[in-house]
C-alpha cells in the first residue's frame, strides 16, 4: 500500500481574547465576531489597557516571551468516548469504527464511564476543582476527518478547572540545582478525537481513516505562565509522568497519544502582550523546546527589524529547524458552539451527596476516586529524597527515564551498598552506558541483580573502584556471568594481605630513596609516583588510598 505523506491537517483554531495587542502599530481585535466565543475566552490574563501605538525601541530593550500550552491526551480506555468501538493504535483502516463514529443518521452518543473517571483522576492529580455538574457542547467545523461536522466537547462548563502543575527546572547554567515552578491549569475537558487524514498529493486527494474518530481526549488548557522552551518541555514531561502514573493516558508523543500546541508571543516587560502565534505539529519534547525557542527568536527578530507578527498558525519543521506558516485557507473560524442536545448534564457526586440506593455503575464518587489515586511523581520524588537522602536532581533523573526507578529499587533490594553509591552507579555509569548505546532501560544487558552483586563486592572492599569499572564493562557484554565470577577470572580482587602490602611498600621505598626524601619534604608528586609504582607491582590489585595510607605510615 502506497504510503501517502501524513501532514498535520487540523484546521486553524482561534483562541481569541487572551491576546489583545495594544503595543504594535497595527491593532488587531479578536478575529471572531461571535459572542459565544467571547464568553468562553474570558481570559484570566489581566487585560492590559490599550494605548496608542509606539514604535518599538530597537536594541537595548529586554524582551519577555509568553508561552501557553494546550495539550490533548488520548485517554487510555478499551472503547471510545461515546461509542463501543475499540481504541487501538494499529488496526486495518476503518475497522474500529461504529455507526456512531461514522456519523450515520439515527445514532446517538453514549458516554463511557472509564473516560469520566480518567478525567476526574487527572483533574484531582492537577489540583483542580472538579465540577459536580459539567456540560457537553458541539463545536462545528467542516473537515473530512470529522464526519459529523462537529466535535462533542465541553466548552461552557468543563469537568475540571483551576488547577496547578508543579515542575522542576534547572537553575542558571549549573545542571545540578533544581528549582520548582508552577503553571496554572485553566481547565480540563473531555472531547472527541477526529479521524486521521492522509494526504495523497500525487492523486490530489485525502484518504480518511476513522479508527481514531471518537476516541476520548483530555484537553488540558494551561494559563500562559511559561516563558521559554525549557519550561514548556519540563511541564510536558511532568504531565506525561503524571498521566502515566495515573494510567489515564500512555502519553506517548511519538504515537500521537499526547499532542501539544503552543501559543507564543513576545513583548517588552511592562508593556501589553504581543500578538501570538500558535505552533502545532510538535511530536517530541525535544522538538517542542526547540520550536518554542525558535519561534520566540523569530518574533523578536521580526519586531526588531520593524516587521509585525501575524496572528497565525505555524508548524514546526524538524528538518529545517524552524516554524513555517500552515496553510490557512479558512481564515477566521467561527465554531458556532451550541449545547449538545443528546446529552444531559454530567453529574458527579461525593460521599456526602451520593444518593441512597444508587446503582454504583451509574454514579461516580469523586471521594472514592481521590482515595484510590496512585502515588504521583512529585510524591515519589519526595519519598526518594527522604528515604535515600538523594539530591532532588537525582530523583528527577530517576523518574524521567522509563524503567530506571524500578531498576534502582530492584538493586536496592538486593544490595548492602549505600543508597548514595547505588544512585551514583545507576545514574552515572548505567545510564551513561545506556545513552551511549542508545538503549532503553528494559534493554539493558546488565540486570539489577548483576549490578547489586558488583556493588556488594565494592562495598565489602573486595575490589577497588577502578576494578569495579572493569567488572561493569565485562558485565555489559551480557554473558551470564556474575560480578564475583568476573572478579575471580580476571583476578581483580583487592589485595587483602596488609602485611604483604607493607612489605611491598617498604621495598619500593628502599628502592627509591630520592623519591622518599621528596615525599618527606611534602612534594605531592613524589607520593603519587610511589603509589603508582606499588600499584603496578600489585598488578593493580591494591586500593590506591590504602597504599597511600601505608606509605605515609611507614615514612613517618
Amino acid at each position: 500500500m502506497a504510503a501517502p505523506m501524513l501532514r498535520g491537517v487540523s484546521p486553524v483554531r482561534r483562541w481569541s481574547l487572551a491576546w489583545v495587542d495594544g503595543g504594535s502599530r497595527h491593532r488587531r481585535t479578536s478575529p471572531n465576531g461571535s459572542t459565544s466565543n467571547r464568553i468562553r475566552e474570558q481570559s484570566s490574563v489581566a487585560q492590559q489597557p490599550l494605548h496608542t501605538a509606539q514604535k518599538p525601541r530597537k536594541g537595548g530593550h529586554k524582551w519577555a516571551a509568553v508561552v501557553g500550552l494546550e495539550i490533548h491526551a488520548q485517554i487510555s480506555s478499551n472503547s471510545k468516548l461515546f461509542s463501543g468501538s475499540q481504541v487501538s493504535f494499529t488496526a486495518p483502516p476503518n475497522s474500529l469504527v461504529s455507526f456512531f463514529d461514522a456519523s450515520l443518521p439515527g445514532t446517538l452518543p453514549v458516554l463511557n464511564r472509564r473516560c469520566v473517571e480518567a478525567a476526574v483522576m487527572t483533574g484531582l492529580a492537577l489540583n483542580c476543582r472538579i465540577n459536580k455538574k459539567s456540560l457537553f457542547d458541539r463545536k462545528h467545523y467542516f473537515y473530512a476527518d470529522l464526519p459529523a461536522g462537529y466535535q462533542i466537547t465541553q466548552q461552557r462548563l468543563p469537568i475540571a478547572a483551576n488547577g496547578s502543575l508543579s515542575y522542576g527546572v534547572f537553575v542558571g547554567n549549573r545542571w545540578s540545582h533544581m528549582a520548582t515552578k508552577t503553571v496554572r491549569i485553566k481547565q480540563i475537558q473531555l472531547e472527541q478525537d477526529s479521524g486521521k487524514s492522509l494526504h495523497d498529493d500525487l492523486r490530489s486527494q485525502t484518504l480518511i481513516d476513522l479508527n481514531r474518530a471518537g476516541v476520548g481526549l483530555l484537553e488540558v488548557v494551561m494559563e500562559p505562565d511559561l516563558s521559554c522552551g525549557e519550561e514548556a518541555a519540563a511541564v510536558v514531561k511532568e504531565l506525561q509522568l503524571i498521566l502515566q502514573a495515573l494510567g489515564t493516558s500512555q502519553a506517548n508523543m511519538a504515537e500521537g497519544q499526547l499532542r501539544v500546541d503552543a501559543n507564543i508571543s513576545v513583548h517588552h516587560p511592562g508593556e501589553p502582550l504581543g500578538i501570538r502565534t500558535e505552533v502545532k505539529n510538535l511530536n517530541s519534547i525535544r522538538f517542542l523546546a526547540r520550536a518554542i525557542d525558535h519561534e520566540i527568536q523569530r518574533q523578536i527578530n521580526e519586531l526588531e527589524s520593524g516587521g509585525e507578527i501575524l496572528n497565525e498558525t505555524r508548524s514546526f519543521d524538524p528538518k529545517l529547524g524552524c516554524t513555517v506558516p500552515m496553510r490557512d485557507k479558512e481564515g477566521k473560524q467561527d465554531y458556532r458552539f451550541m449545547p449538545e442536545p443528546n446529552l444531559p448534564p454530567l453529574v458527579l457526586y461525593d460521599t456526602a451527596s451520593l444518593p441512597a440506593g444508587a446503582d454504583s455503575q451509574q454514579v461516580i464518587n469523586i471521594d472514592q476516586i481521590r482515595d484510590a489515586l496512585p502515588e504521583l511523581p512529585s510524591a515519589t520524588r519526595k519519598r526518594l529524597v527522604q528515604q535515600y537522602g538523594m539530591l532532588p536532581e537525582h530523583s528527577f533523573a530517576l523518574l524521567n527515564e522509563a524503567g530506571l526507578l524500578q531498576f534502582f529499587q530492584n538493586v536496592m533490594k538486593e544490595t548492602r551498598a549505600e543508597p548514595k553509591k547505588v544512585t551514583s552507579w545507576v545514574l552515572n555509569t548505567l545510564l551513561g552506558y545506556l545513552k551511549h548505546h542508545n538503549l532503553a532501560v528494559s534493554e539493558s544487558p546488565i540486570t539489577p541483580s548483576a549490578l547489586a552483586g558488583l556493588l556488594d563486592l565494592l562495598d565489602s572492599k573486595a575490589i577497588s573502584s577502578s576494578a569495579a569499572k572493569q567488572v561493569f564493562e565485562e558485565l555489559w557484554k551480557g554473558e551470564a556471568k556474575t560480578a564475583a565470577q568476573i572478579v575471580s577470572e580476571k583476578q581483580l580482587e583487592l589485595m587483602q594481605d596488609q602485611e604483604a602490602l607493607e612489605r611491598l611498600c617498604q621495598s619500593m621505598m628502599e628502592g627509591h630513596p630520592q623519591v622518599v626524601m621528596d615525599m618527606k619534604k611534602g612534594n605531592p608528586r613524589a607520593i603519587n609516583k610511589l603509589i603508582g609504582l606499588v600499584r603496578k607491582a600489585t598488578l593493580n590489585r591494591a586500593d590506591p588510598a590504602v597504599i597511600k595510607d601505608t606509605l605515609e605510615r611507614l615514612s613517618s
Partner: protein
Amino acid sequence: MAARAVWLAFRGGLGRRQAFSTKANVQGSGRITVEVIEHLERLALVDFGSREAVARLEKAVAFADRLREVDTDGVEPMESVLEDRCLYLRSDNVAEGNCAEELLQNSHRVMEEYFVAPPGNISLPKLDKQESFLHS
C-alpha cells in the same frame, strides 16, 4: 434556549447598526446584511439562493425575537430539555466496530479501505465573484 443561542450568534455578526430594541423590526431588508449571509453560507454550507430565502430568515429571527418579551429576570436558563434526565454511563467494553465493508459502501469513492475525500477544504467562491442577488 436554543433559539436564544441562535439570536446571540446573529447579534454577534450584525455589527454596527445595532438595534437593542425588544420590538423586532420585521420589515426585512437591510437588517440582515450581506456579510452575515456570506458568513452563514460559509459556516453552515446552506445556500441563501434567493431574496425569498433571506426574507424567510429575517422572519424566523423576528419570530424568535418574541422570546425577549418574556420577563426572565431571576430565572436560571435551562441547559437543555434533558437536564433533569440521568446521563447514562456505559461500561468500558468493546461492543462495536469491525464493519469497514458496510461503512465504505456509503462512500462515493474508496481506496483500499480508506474513504476518499478532496485534498482539504475547498473554499466557497467570494461573493463578488458570484452573482450577488442582494445587489442586483
